[in-house]
């Protein structure tokens, strides 16, 4: 067979071929899954955003009341549920404070601080220990988000971390002044 004949023969092969079965049901099924995913993605912010906003507002309000030492009602008269809410609000407020402080710490790069005489390794060790405790606590809280004991522990831990972060910031400031 000549080259041109071969090319003609190949070129004349039909481009279209009927699939052995209807493939649309399979495609439709997958498109349905895509549609469901999209709907879920759109749905999520619908309730998530107001919920987050409510949580932040509650945390702020609780933080303000507690910070001012105001009692909404005599402790004895406060129902357990209200106490629980107030406590969880405090946890959330502390969490926000910690996140804000931590975001300031990150640019400080505590690991590379020029802390002469402050033993950076010891500092790093303390921080790592706090982080390990944080990881374990957060994992437990994912399973039991409303557990009072765990939230209390988180509150303690966040206080320690906040203190640590503030000390570091102070040390960095002093160190910067010295240099």
């Amino acid at each position, binding site marked *: *067979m000549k*080259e041109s004949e*071969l*090319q003609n*023969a*190949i*070129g004349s*092969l*039909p*481009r*279209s*071929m*009927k*699939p*052995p*079965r209807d*493939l*649309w049901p*399979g*495609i*439709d099924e*997958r*498109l349905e899954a*895509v*549609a469901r995913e999209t709907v879920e993605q759109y749905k999520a912010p619908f309730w998530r955003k107001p919920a987050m906003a409510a949580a932040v507002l509650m945390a702020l309000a609780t933080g303000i009341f507690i910070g001012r030492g105001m009692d909404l009602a005599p402790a004895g008269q406060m129902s357990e549920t209200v106490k629980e809410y107030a406590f969880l609000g405090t946890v959330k407020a502390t969490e926000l404070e910690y996140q804000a402080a931590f975001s300031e710490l990150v640019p400080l790069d505590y690991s590379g601080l020029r802390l002469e005489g402050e033993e950076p390794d010891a500092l790093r060790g303390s921080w790592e220990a706090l982080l390990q405790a944080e990881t374990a606590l957060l994992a437990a809280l994912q399973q039991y988000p409303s557990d009072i004991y765990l939230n209390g522990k988180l509150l303690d831990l966040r206080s320690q971390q906040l203190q640590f972060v503030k000390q570091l910031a102070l040390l960095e400031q002093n160190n910067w002044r010295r240099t």
Partner: protein
Amino acid sequence: MTSWQHDKTDLLATEKRWVDKAQAGDRLAFEKLYRGHCDRIFGLCWRMCGGDNALAEDMVQEAFVRAWNKLHLFKGESKFGTWLHRLAVNVVLSDRRIRVKRVQREQEFSEDIERVQVGDRDVFAGLRKDLEAAISGLPERARTVLVLYDIEGYKHDEIAKMTGMAVGSSKAQLHRARKLVREVLKDSENI
């Protein structure tokens, strides 16, 4: 304007309406697009998959799902069929199973060209059947270039872009593919 041109214009206008509706999320309109193009896309996938029906079916489904997901990117600068065709080529080229097969085939392929059964049904007669068998049995890269150039009408620079090979390699693969096909056909004539 001839009646044939009229029909074509009508078809394109209808297709454009379906595309618009599908872009707005109408799955029935997308099904119409599928019905209009599935044979063409299956033919392409089947040949590029070396006559593997199951793999070709997977590729067609993947191509249409991807087309649905990327439909918002279709701006109507080319025909929908052209856009879909190119997308299907990319789907086949990027499929891992085919890449794995390609490596295996290239390694196994020696001077002997294996004869591959064409599909499940014996729908091709005479030369066409032998040709399809010869094309199916080609090494992956050679087959890809031959299918895209000789059957689908792509140019070498387009093939080079899609496959990531140099234009020269595309030409060389085409030359190799045609030579191998001719050898297979010669063998089958001698049997």
